[in-house]
């Protein structure tokens, strides 16, 4: 540990820092030049000889997300291990597998992880889900499960044309309008214009904002005929709205929000496919919802979100767990909507133990088996979400 940095002159330090920054970027930690400059300034204030202080300083300046902290520490260890072996100051990652410079496995999976891009979506005004397919009634009413390949393509094209629209909620922010509250600032301005006489009280009202939408989609084997086309539907919805979080689950929960940000639907679906390992397997809905509640609930449900849970209710898990977690999910969301493709089947009754446990905690129970039901869902979203 002591002889960690053999030739620690400031000249070498700069080289090392640049090389290390480069290494971090390769592991998907987004670093900009400003941070490197900050780091140089910061290092003026710490004792360069103190390995731990230099480490902590780099950490404070270069890392901005908790997820990146372990990656950073691993990369740091790796970097200096390589330096100790006498590689030249500027370091490139070894091209092929190399005995001496073996990248630790924990780091390897971060290699070329795409650095998170800013999620800056255009501020959208009134968004609308204009869900009307002008297509033949027959296709609209046909169950997705019975679609031919051609029909599936056609349905995908139709879904791609959807214009999302979601309801707005009143937030604690004001805009000029016809509310009850007097807008003092505008009134004063107005008064000045008319020579100091208050001729009119201008008013303001609460601003309306779109509610966040959270989608939890079952991708287990029994949902196979539906899940792919429904993911497409979700892709279209997320493209049109500001605040959509999407998760899929079979035996475990995966967040796919970032992957759906690909504009191209095929790329998006490919990215999802690559990230999800339990596609077409079994289902543990209760466990998946529990994971969601624990890890994500507080982060994405804070603002009165509408939750869409898409599943056929075939659960291999414990019904009491499902019931308890559904209850929590309902309490923390504004509205919990269960979409069940089986509901489109004539004579279907939600009798499975899982469905029985979950149903008391669902605000709406709706079918999603054909284009027509997607249309209705759009209308439902638009209507429930507006206060």
């Amino acid at each position: 540990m002591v002889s960690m940095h053999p030739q620690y002159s400031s000249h070498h330090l700069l080289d090392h820092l640049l090389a290390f920054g480069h290494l971090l970027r390769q592991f998907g930690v987004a670093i900009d030049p400003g941070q490197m400059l900050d780091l140089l300034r910061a290092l003026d204030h710490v004792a360069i000889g103190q390995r731990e202080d230099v480490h902590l300083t780099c950490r404070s300046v270069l890392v901005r997300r908790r997820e990146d902290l372990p990656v950073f520490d691993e990369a740091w260890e790796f970097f200096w291990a390589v330096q100790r072996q006498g590689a030249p100051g500027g370091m490139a990652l070894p091209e092929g597998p190399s005995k001496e410079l073996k990248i630790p496995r924990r780091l390897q999976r971060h290699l070329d992880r795409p650095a998170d891009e800013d999620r800056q979506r255009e501020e959208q005004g009134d968004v609308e889900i204009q869900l009307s397919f002008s297509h033949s009634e027959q296709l609209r009413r046909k169950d997705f499960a019975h679609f031919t390949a051609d029909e599936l393509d056609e349905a995908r094209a139709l879904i791609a044309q959807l214009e999302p629209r979601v309801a707005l909620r009143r937030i604690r922010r004001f805009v000029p309008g016809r509310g009850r509250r007097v807008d003092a600032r505008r009134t004063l301005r107005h008064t000045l214009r008319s020579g100091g006489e208050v001729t009119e009280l201008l008013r303001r009202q609460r601003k309306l904002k779109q509610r966040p939408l959270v989608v939890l989609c079952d991708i287990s084997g029994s949902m196979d005929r539906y899940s792919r086309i429904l993911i497409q539907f979700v892709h279209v919805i997320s493209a049109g709205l500001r605040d959509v979080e999407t998760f899929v689950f079979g035996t475990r929960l995966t967040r796919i929000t970032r992957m759906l940000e690909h504009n191209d639907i095929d790329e998006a679906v490919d990215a999802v496919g690559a990230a999800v390992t339990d596609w077409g397997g079994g289902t543990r809905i209760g466990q998946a919802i529990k994971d969601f509640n624990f890890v994500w609930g507080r982060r994405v449900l804070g603002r009165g979100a509408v939750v869409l849970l898409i599943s056929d209710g075939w659960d291999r898990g414990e019904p009491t767990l499902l019931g308890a977690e559904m209850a929590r999910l309902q309490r923390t969301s504004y509205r919990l909507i269960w979409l069940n493709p089986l509901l489109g089947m004539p004579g279907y009754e939600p009798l499975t133990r899982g469905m029985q446990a979950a149903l008391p905690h669902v605000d709406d129970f709706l079918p999603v088996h054909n284009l027509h039901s997607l249309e209705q869902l759009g209308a439902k979203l638009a209507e429930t979400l507006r206060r």
Partner: protein
Amino acid sequence: MSDASTFSSIDALQSALSAHSYVADRPLATAVYLALKLGKPLLLEGEAGVGKTEIAKVLARLLDTRLIRLQCYEGLDVATAVYEWNYPRQMLYLRAAESGGGTKEQALHDIFGPDFLLKRPLLQALEVSENGRPAVLLVDELDRADDEFEAFLLEVLSDFQVTIPEIGTIAAAQPPVAILTSNRTREIHDALKRRCLYHWIDYPSIDKEIEIVNTRMPGVGERLSQQVVTFVHELRQMDLYKLPGIAETLDWVSALTALDRTALDPATVDDTLGALLKYQDDIAAVRKRGVQALLRG
């Protein structure tokens, strides 16, 4: 008392913090030290109750300056966070000026002067305190504010200046020491993070937490603090919705002290669980697991 430039090293800051009853580990001390030296805001993330807010309060005492706290909530706007004109007063002044025979231009000029400006926390933070030192600005629970607020906070934190159309730009002579906290109920926007140094505060180790309890509540016996902290650490291993933070540990210790307890026993723990756990489900889970079993560790 000292100002920011007195801390010649991380060690110096660390011991100054502990002299003010704040036990900071090395990584946190480093982050705070750098924030002071570089004049950059420090974004602290971590679970609730790990001492994020406390560090700002301690810093203000340590630096002998004002603490300006801005509690965030959804819908926080410029009028509440930065400044607002005192409209009723402006109106009255206008009318008075008119009847007093002053010119309208003069009156207009007057009413948009500093006397009519109501300064809110972010604007106050740009002013030095009475002893000439920059203030400590605490922007608390930033994750509860919305995007619109983050946008103008970004503006303030980039240059430490605020532009008021009627007056012009007000810049800080000395930038405040800015501490931003987030419980991470949502992600803070990258643009804002880019302006800040970042530090994640974890739950402390058992030894560290015992040290914290002893520092903050000197009268507590060694046995009790040891037992309490060990028990809390057991709880943090469990699958609970809301894990108890240091704040809860301290609350619990005060509760136990108020009950004159010097050691933990199952009945007392059961009676006072409410000081530690804030969800009924969690309390039920702990009871199910058995307080006695947990006490044995």
